[in-house]
């Protein structure tokens, strides 16, 4: 596919400038600017910088872009809005500040929206991730009817009640950018001054859609799932037996990586259409069990005592 970028008319931020602007904005708000996690995830929430950092009592502010893979949403690069992999800009503010909605709205102004000329709404949408044992209360933010952000007060992560409460902002970068640039198809977005989104990502969409829907080896994926689950479980089972000195470097983070692998492999099986409804629930419960156990062990590890009473 050839680049369709019209260089003469530049409405709205380039995709990369949108990322830069949001990064600047949130860094000024005291966020650590993190990098995308380097294993496949379905959402920015799964990055340890969210899933694990929201646990425990310390404060933390972080922002990062997270490419998120959803194999079942792939459309071979033929649908203007649906993607195998889209980019989320994720912000975690722990604890949640009282003026968090205002700060968020300022970030929209920062990327070039005149808030008085658009219909911006906070519409009820409680986010939940059954595979992570995580949920929160909040809204989807609608910009002239378009969902642009998931805004959530995290209540639980890994089955653990959170205290303090973190707020999670998840911007859908492609949608926001398409809105700003006024284009109909994500592939027509200007990524930079001379490259389109299609130039950079189309091949990936085509090939990974083909792989996930038509060519992945379901049997192999299933056994990979089992292997990763097994490793995660073994690591988690070793944790309570870890000696005092080993505890700091005990690889719970590696257990979590295996959990993330399981989640992605589950998504691949789902896209391949090899999971029945009943099995679906059972597989999700298995991933959740690992995620919840990881969260609880992690809490024990950071608080330095195994006897910590975990509220569940």
């Amino acid at each position, binding site marked *: 596919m050839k680049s369709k970028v019209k260089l003469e008319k530049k409405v709205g931020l380039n995709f990369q400038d949108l990322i830069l602007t949001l990064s600047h904005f949130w860094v000024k708000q005291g966020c650590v600017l993190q990098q995308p996690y380097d294993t496949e995830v379905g959402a920015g929430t799964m990055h340890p910088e969210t899933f694990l950092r929201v646990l425990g009592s310390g404060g933390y502010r972080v922002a990062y872009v997270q490419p998120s893979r959803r194999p079942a949403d792939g459309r071979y690069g033929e649908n*203007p809005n649906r993607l195998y992999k889209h980019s989320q800009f994720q912000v975690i503010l722990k604890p949640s500040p009282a003026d968090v909605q205002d700060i968020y709205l300022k970030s929209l102004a920062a990327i070039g929206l005149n808030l008085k000329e658009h219909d*911006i*709404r906070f519409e009820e949408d409680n986010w939940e991730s059954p595979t992570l044992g995580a949920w929160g209360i909040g809204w989807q933010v609608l910009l002239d009817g378009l969902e642009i952000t998931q805004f959530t007060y995290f*209540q639980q992560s890994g089955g653990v009640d959170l205290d303090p409460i973190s707020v999670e902002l998840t911007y859908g970068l492609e949608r926001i950018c398409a809105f700003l640039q006024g284009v109909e198809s994500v592939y027509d977005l200007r990524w930079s001054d001379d490259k389109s989104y299609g130039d950079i990502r189309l091949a990936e969409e085509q090939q990974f859609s083909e792989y996930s829907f038509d060519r992945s080896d379901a049997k192999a994926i299933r056994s990979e799932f089992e292997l990763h689950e097994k490793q995660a479980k073994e690591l988690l089972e070793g944790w309570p037996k870890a000696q005092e000195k080993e505890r700091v470097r005990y690889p719970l983070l590696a257990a979590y990586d295996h959990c993330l692998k399981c989640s992605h492999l589950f998504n691949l099986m789902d896209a391949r259409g090899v999971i029945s409804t*009943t099995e679906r629930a059972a597989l999700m419960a298995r991933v959740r069990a690992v995620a919840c156990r990881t969260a609880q062990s992690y809490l024990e590890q950071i608080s330095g005592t195994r006897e910590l009473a975990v509220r569940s």
Partner: protein
Amino acid sequence: MKRSVKKAEERRAELLLEIGCEEIPAGMLPRAEEELRSGIEKLLTAENMADCVSVETYSAPRRLTAWVRGLRTKQADLVSEVTGPPKSVAYDAVGAPTRAAVSFAEKQGVALHDVYCIQTQKGEYLAAKQIKRGRSTEQILLDILPRVIHDIYWPKTMTWTGLSGARFIRPVRWLVGIFDGKPLKFKFAELTGGTETAGHRFLGASRIRVKSFADYEKKLRANGVIVRASARREKVEKELAALAKKGSYKVHEDAELLKLVSYLSEYPTVIEGKFDPAFLSLPDEILITVMRGHQKYFAVEKRGGDLAPNFLAVINLDKDPKGLTRVGHEKVLRARFADARFFWESDQKCRLADYLPKLERVTYESRLGSYKDKVERMRAIARWLAEQWFNLGLVQAHVAEADRATELAKCDLATEMVREFTELQGVVGGLYAKSQGEPEEVADAIYDHYLPVGLDDPVPRNLTGCAVAIADKLDSVAGCFAVGVVPSGSSDPFALRRAALGIVKIVLEKKLPLSLSLAVSQALKVLLTHAPKKSVTPEQEAQILDFLRDRARYVFREKDGFEYDEVNAVFRAGADDLVDARKRLEALRAIRKSKNFEPLTVSFKRIRKILEKAGKQAEGVHIQTDLFEGDAERTLFASMRKAGPKVEEQKRAGHYKEALEVIASLRPEVDRFFEQVMVMAENEAVKKNRLALLSELLREFSTIADFSELGGEGKN
């Protein structure tokens, strides 16, 4: 004894309360308004402060408001009189106070000379006055308002500060409390009541000082917030009508959507958008669902009722001068319609029946198997229903069509369209079937088979649809009961009450002949012979039948207005077909007021009591005319024998009123019998003969309605 001390012309004051929030879900606001109002009233009543007080509550996405008028500024003192010892004990012979009088005064904390005598029913007693001083209203409000806010019911609450923090539907960010013109510093969620509210997020100031409710309402209006939902709704209605007039089209009626959008904005404004008329090739149902479901837009219709390529969106702004918002909404709708068209086309790359094998992967209930299994069971039931109806002379009952429609009924659950718009299940299947050339009867049956959803919903339009709908619902009820999923209290995850009510409604509205007990046993037979081959105990079968009858009783009482005892009488007499049961009820209602009927029911009740008392004495006894001793017995017997065949004939012809009239005509003979005959005669044979006569009377003439159920005592 308590009474309030009344002061003349007491000054009354106003309270303004506002709970400032982050956006509360629109659907929850109407109930929250009501909760806030009743909560304030309840706690004021408990403080004896509610008389002549009016409480009005309002809400908008970022606020819950209460306006309370007519509050006293101070709680009335409460005077009570405490009774002490009898006068005879309290004073001695010379009238001097005794030890008892002194200690009573001490205990009540009053001087001895303030104690006085009162006259009671038991004689003269000592008494003392106790005055409980009222608190200031301000003090009381500081006390009760945090409780009122805390007690508001929400379907799901959250915390925004941490586990020890307050819980509410969304974070509370400010509180306004003004009583009698002064700030009321009540506390909730680490906030304190004050005089500053906030305007519209984008149209108003973020800090606005207010003095009273009138001031509050006026200033908020100037800052882009319409406080009253009713006023917001009027604004929306007016603007919808104006735009419709301008575009010469009609707004597609949607009362629920209108209510929702009135609570979705603090300042609603209607704008018009357009879409590509090419999308109109999609069915209206799909276009409307896309517009209303996700986007909350009103669809509009042209004169002939066809959809116009326009929509009306309600935005949370005062205007859209550059049309930017319109362009945005149009773009979102275009993408959604494009999705819907993609589903419509890609779903139909294969035929509806091709989705059948995919239903194997869609679980209905873990123990009842997949939707594929359910469809097989439904087919067996639907075929049976159609056969029954055909054999009973309903020529529109088509077994083959009912079978085909049932086979295809659940296929749309595996389509992309229904996965995206679940509320269109059934509808999508019907539309696909029609566009793929299935007979109209079959397509309509698929389309309608989830009906009726509510009590006021329509039922399936054709008989085939009724067969599919009843088969679906009957299988759900029978299957779930069989595996122990029985509705209890508010828990009814498979909506079995709705299913049972649906069956009753279809049968009654379409006047379909159907024996409930046969239908249940057929559904259970199917459950036993088809996967997952579950069996039930006779108790479970009775339980299922009762569950269905209970819904029928409900409809007969609440919708048709029959009396409780009438419905009982008819079911006790063995009514098993609901249309027949209703005919009996109508006949019963018609004859109930006639002069012979009510006295006759009294006699029947008396007979039932006599027979119950006599136990098994009359069992197996044949009536012997030669044992009759008097005329009364003989004439009663003769009229019974004469009336019996007549009643039977009328009953068979479905003339229940006429049959009941024949029965009622027995009254003089029955009365005479009880006047002249002593049932429990000394002679054993005579007695048994009389019991047998009464037993036959009761049995033979209680087959339409059990009269002994009628009237107050009949309920047992």
